[in-house]
């Protein structure tokens, strides 16, 4: 009895906790019985060779994978202590709670302001006043350190921004709906080194307020920009530890081989 309570307390600390999560694309199995507990408020990175299932795992966390009708999922995923596959769960609420940033910056082809307000408008029932909208836009852009750069051209098309600014905007537009988890699927792979650095700094700033789960191909990035690291291979989790430790003393041969660049 005491043990269960202890367990529940532990679960509350976890932003994401999965049990026996398996996923199939048609007949191809991409994830095998994934059991992961991702702590709240820190940055966790996921590394592994292409096709190891890290993006698939990420995309399962806000159920965006289900856009494809040939995806089949079994197992349990709790986000902030709630099973996101429970029948009474509204998929739109899951996606509000768990924001996602994509590999290629994908601002909507509307103004910067409307991009920021998009999520807010679809999730708020009534009309929002002009001044409140202004505050929302300013606060979101301030948080991603973009406000000073774009405050004079909020009505310009978001697609005209530089890639780095677009990616920051894509992060900023998630913030007004107050998500608890931010998923990032190789958010820097379309950016140059300067842009990468800027986005990494931003992630570090956002940490604590949000739980961040970032998929990356760049091991140096995983090392410098995350607190815990997950190594995946062939749809299975091989190792999940504190980042520094994992890179210094990997427990598994596969992990060691991968981070030393022997494959992948």
């Amino acid at each position, binding site marked *: 009895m005491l043990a269960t309570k202890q367990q529940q307390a532990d679960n509350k600390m976890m932003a994401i906790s999965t049990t026996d999560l398996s996923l199939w694309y048609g007949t191809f199995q991409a994830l095998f019985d994934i059991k992961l507990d991702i702590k709240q408020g820190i940055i966790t990175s996921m590394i592994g060779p292409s096709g190891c299932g890290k993006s698939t795992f990420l995309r399962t966390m806000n159920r965006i994978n289900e856009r494809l009708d040939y995806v089949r999922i079994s197992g349990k995923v709790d986000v902030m202590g709630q099973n996101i596959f429970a029948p009474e769960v509204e998929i739109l609420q899951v996606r509000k709670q768990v924001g996602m940033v994509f590999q*290629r910056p994908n601002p909507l082809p509307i103004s910067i302001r409307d991009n920021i307000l998009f999520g807010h408008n679809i999730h708020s029932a009534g009309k929002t006043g002009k001044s409140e909208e202004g505050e929302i836009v300013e606060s979101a852009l301030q948080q991603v350190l973009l406000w000073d750069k774009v405050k004079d051209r909020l009505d310009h098309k978001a697609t005209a921004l530089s890639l780095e600014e677009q990616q920051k905007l894509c992060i900023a537009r998630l913030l007004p709906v107050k998500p608890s988890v931010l998923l990032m699927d190789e958010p820097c792979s379309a950016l140059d080194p300067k842009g990468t650095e800027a986005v990494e700094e931003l992630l570090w700033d956002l940490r604590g307020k949000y739980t961040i789960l970032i998929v990356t191909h760049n091991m140096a990035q995983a090392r410098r920009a995350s607190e815990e690291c997950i190594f995946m291979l062939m749809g299975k989790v091989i190792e999940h530890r504190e980042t520094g430790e994992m890179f210094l003393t990997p427990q598994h041969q596969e992990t060691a081989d991968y981070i030393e660049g022997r494959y992948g």
Partner: protein
Amino acid sequence: MTTKRNAESVAAAADFDKLNRDWYIDKAVQVLVFLGGISAIIFIIGIFVFITKEGMGFILGDFSFTEFFFSQNWRPTSENKATYGILALIAGTASVTGLAMLIAIPFSLGTAIFIAEFATGRTREFLKITVELLAAIPSVVWGFIGLALMNPLIIDIFDVPVGLNVLNAGIILGLMAAPIMTSIAEDALKAVPDRYREAAEAMGATRWQVIYKVVLPAAKNGLLGAVLLGVGRGFGETMAVLMATGHAINIPGSVFDSVRALTATIAAELGETAVGSPHYQALFTIGISLFVITFIINLIADLVIRDVRKG
């Protein structure tokens, strides 16, 4: 030894200049393809020159700008004083096309949205084929439907004396224009990158919000292009309109009035006129007007659609 090597290299150099069969075939194909490519331009210029030449005598002679465009008296066969006013014909064409668009736009946009955003697999293929099949129905068949099916139906339902009127032709023309508009509109929706939809859905937007707030605004130029092509189709359609409008020169006061279209007038009268007579030339002047109008509409549609591809 040296001389021999020199001789060899000279022979090799000479080979570069050799024009063999492949070279000639290549050149011939190039010329053919080029001719094919510019033939459309040649034809369109040729047609324009021809109708202008035939209509010119009228434009330079009896033509009065005010009478032609602002008089509703089209009496080309009058014994004492023939008048050539096409206002009523313009009104006829415009009212039928306008009503047709009112009918075709919601239908075609609805179908396009369904095909592009909702239907999957078999349903989608089946729908696309059906829409294309609809576009292949000859216009005289549509005219026949207007004449034989819609006419008595309209008389029955609305209790009006004549069923060949703006309503009849508008419905027929709307159904005729809808397939091509659907195809173009669907292309425009498909051209919206999927990452926009994904982005919006990942933020928790519903299917309808994605369509209404993201896809339609992003595709709006292509959709406008689709509508303009439909309008062009409406202006140019002849046979179905000739059969379904009632062919009465009249500025319509309601959808139950019979009208006559510009195109139908040419089709019906050209065979009866003496070549080179003022009547004949006036009909060609109508042709010039139609040509210019449809050219402008198509040009706008094309520019609008091209703008989409760039963006």
